[in-house]
């Protein structure tokens, strides 16, 4: 439901931005797919989600907290956004990086093409209609958000502290939850690649590699933020996708969530940009490959696990191979998603400025 509402918000924002670009005539609005509804349906019917629910895991709750945060930010419901962010960070460490897209969302408003485009457009027409410009970056909501986030986090921490007083208090809780995620103590096999790595790495290098892998996630925050700051919702989904790929204990549920989020964004991009565009638009090139890859991995991975652990005829390498293929598929998905969004922006720019397409497109 929340995904649907977020989709609706985004669609409205998109329409608004296109209006301000005077592109409405060129777009066939009826071809706008109901991206939010499709995304919600895909999420619910995804076999990964169903399997995760059958396995009684709590990751749907984490995903709900993330979506709550984004919905609140899109709809300008700041306490809700702060609550969602605090709960998502409390449940698992990685949604903490969503603070950046949330700040952008609250500051700039939902997805819109870059401001440069507006300036270029209006420069050409030599009409400066202030009311049609999207609002600039405003600090008011940010401060409001910071206040609410602080309030909610204090509330959560106080509750945890009270209930855990006899077990060692807050420090023990941080060590067991965040520390566990960061130091990768448990080496049980899972669909990620880190368990085998840390089972085989030499003790001397273990801390170094821990830092490298966690910094990998942190490092990409900045470049992505710079390139996609005008589309904070998409930025948020790309962050979620990267986290689900590189986190220390990934699960199928994370994949289903980031699948659905990226697909939603792509559904937005499927909006035709008019007859001037070639139908290439912004579809991904590898969609069939990825789909078959996911199906193959989800079928083979339990088989290899069974062979290794239950029958004793296989090796750890079989299972690890499926995990590696899975990681590669997710990498391709993320990279292609980002390229598709950037392509979409290029198309918009070309439409506005009216220049012929570059040779390199």
């Amino acid at each position, binding site marked *: 439901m929340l995904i649907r509402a977020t989709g609706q918000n985004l669609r409205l924002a998109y329409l608004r931005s296109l209006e301000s670009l005077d592109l409405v005539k060129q777009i066939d609005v009826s071809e706008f797919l109901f991206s939010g509804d499709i995304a919600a349906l895909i999420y619910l019917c995804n076999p990964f989600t169903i399997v995760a629910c059958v396995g009684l895991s709590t990751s749907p709750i984490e995903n709900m907290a993330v979506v709550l945060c984004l919905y609140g930010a899109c709809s300008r419901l700041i306490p809700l956004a702060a609550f969602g962010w605090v709960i998502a960070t409390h449940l698992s460490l990685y949604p903490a990086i969503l603070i950046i897209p949330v700040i952008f969302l609250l500051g700039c408003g939902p997805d819109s093409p870059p401001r440069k485009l507006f300036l270029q457009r209006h420069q050409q027409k030599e009409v400066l209609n202030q009311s049609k410009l999207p609002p600039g970056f405003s600090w008011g909501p940010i401060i409001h958000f910071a206040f609410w986030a602080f309030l909610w986090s204090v509330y959560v921490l106080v509750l945890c502290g009270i209930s855990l007083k006899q077990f060692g208090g807050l420090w023990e809780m941080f060590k067991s939850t965040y520390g566990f995620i960061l130091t990768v*103590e*448990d*080496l*049980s*096999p899972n669909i990620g*690649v*880190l*368990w*085998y*790595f*840390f*089972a*085989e*790495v*030499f*003790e001397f290098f273990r801390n170094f590699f821990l830092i*490298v*892998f966690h910094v*990998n996630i942190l*490092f*990409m925050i900045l*470049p*992505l933020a710079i*390139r996609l700051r005008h589309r904070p919702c998409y930025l948020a989904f790309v962050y979620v996708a990267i986290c689900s*790929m*590189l986190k220390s204990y990934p699960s199928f549920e994370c994949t289903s969530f980031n699948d659905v989020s990226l697909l939603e964004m792509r559904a937005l991009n499927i909006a035709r940009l008019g007859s001037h565009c070639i139908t290439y638009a912004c579809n991904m090139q590898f969609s069939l490959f990825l789909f078959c890859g996911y199906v193959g991995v989800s079928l083979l991975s339990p088989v290899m696990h069974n062979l*290794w*652990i*239950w*029958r*004793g005829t296989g*090796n*750890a*390498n079989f299972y*690890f191979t499926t995990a*590696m293929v899975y*990681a*590669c598929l997710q*990498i391709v998905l*993320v*990279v292609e998603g*980002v*390229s598709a969004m*950037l392509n979409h*922006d*290029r198309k918009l720019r070309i439409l506005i400025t009216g*220049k012929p397409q*570059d040779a*390199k497109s």
Partner: protein
Amino acid sequence: MELSFTQGRWNYESWGGFDPIPSSNAKPPGVELWAVFDAPQHLIDALWKNLTHTLSGLFCASINFLESSTAYSAPEWSFPPASGKLRYGTLPREAVCTENLTPWLKLLPCRDKAGISMLLDRPSIYRGFYHSQRLHLTSTGSGSEGMDPGIILEQTLTVVLQPDSQRASLAHASEKHIQPSWSLSSIFGKQISGRCVLAETSNVYFLLDRGLVAELEHIHKENEKSEENVLISEKFWNNPSFELSAKPDRIFIEESSLLSKNASVLYKFEIEKYGESEPFDLGLFWKTPVVWLCQQAPLHANRFLMGSGNERGAIAISLKSTQSSEGFMGSNSNDERCELRVDVFQVVPWYVKVYFHSLQVFVDQQPKAVSDIIEKIHVSPSKDKVSPGVMELVLTLPCSVSSAVLTIEFDKGFLHIDEYPPDANQGFDIPSAIVSFPDFHARMVFLENDSLNKSPEKSPVMSYTEVLLVPLTTPDFSMPYNVITITCTVFALYFGSLLNALRRRVAEEERFLKDK
């Protein structure tokens, strides 16, 4: 403190489980060490580390593996004198050889050069079914018994051997064994020629268990109508059943025990009288075949693993009543609510993650509620790589129980490649569990006029279960470099392609703006 090195498993069915000998000398395979410290609580772990290292150097054994907190535990009430200051650790896989026996012998005043320990012929000891060397250290610092403060060191070597005559006729020896004829020279190949000059007393004791005494008297009564107490009369070598090759110096009869009307008989041979010229050789020759079995503990304890696959399984402890349990129940069956108390103590290493909530009890193959059977339970769950899982239970079973089974489920963990032993595919050992019956005390008291011969230490009847071998999943040990490079390649792929995708458009935009 007690340290024992054991090779082999004590066969409770054949060799008994109720006497003091099995109860104190039947030890789990490998090394077992427990120690009670007289120090503040926070220093005990450091003292334990020092102790393990010292003993390891002294006995040429790898007892220092017990120093890490994953190897030892602190039971609360399984060992009577304890209370938080006891530490217990065992190494089930430790092999015992002459290199461990030699330092143990060095602690004796004459080593194995003179005295009774001359008998210790290595090949004959290691050819037996079971051998265990035990060291018990007590410090009497308080001097409460009128003794000077000091340290008492008690060393015990327990060997179970098979005489040659029985080895030859081992065709049908399944349940009851015909008693073999043996002599010290036939078993060890040597005789005792004199005592150690540094020893205050040097004696050889020969014990006839009360069950055997009852059997012999039964045979006497069948054969002749003569008087009783043939065994202790001076003319004992006219005994119709057996003949001893040496004359005992003293004969003791056990004080009548509560549980049976028969009494054990103890013969004492003093070695002072023998010397080089007249070596001591004790031999027993049976004139008529006598069949006899040792008395067993009230319940025979077994332990085994259930389940298949390398992900999860279950441990089951089964207690079966033995034939001798009827004797016990007879004396207690006055009241209908007679109950048998059983203590179970089990330590499980951390990589076998036991789920204590899945404990189930079956009495006579019927599942029972846990609270009916278990009177007290103390559980210390395992922490990964920090401490093992400890479980102490007190069960109260009805006296007429024929079998009781406890099952508990576990998950198997996954270790770093450094933590696997050299032969990783053999599996990992779960140390023996200790099953004890506090209601019954294993002791024998022999009184001769005014002196107390065997010191009656009150120790409950104890038995050790088997050591379990758990196979764990192993990673591929030959692949550390490959795994590291492949994983880093995946990360580089992500890093590079994403940065490339981000960067590409920026350059085009800049070019575009420049053109403008």
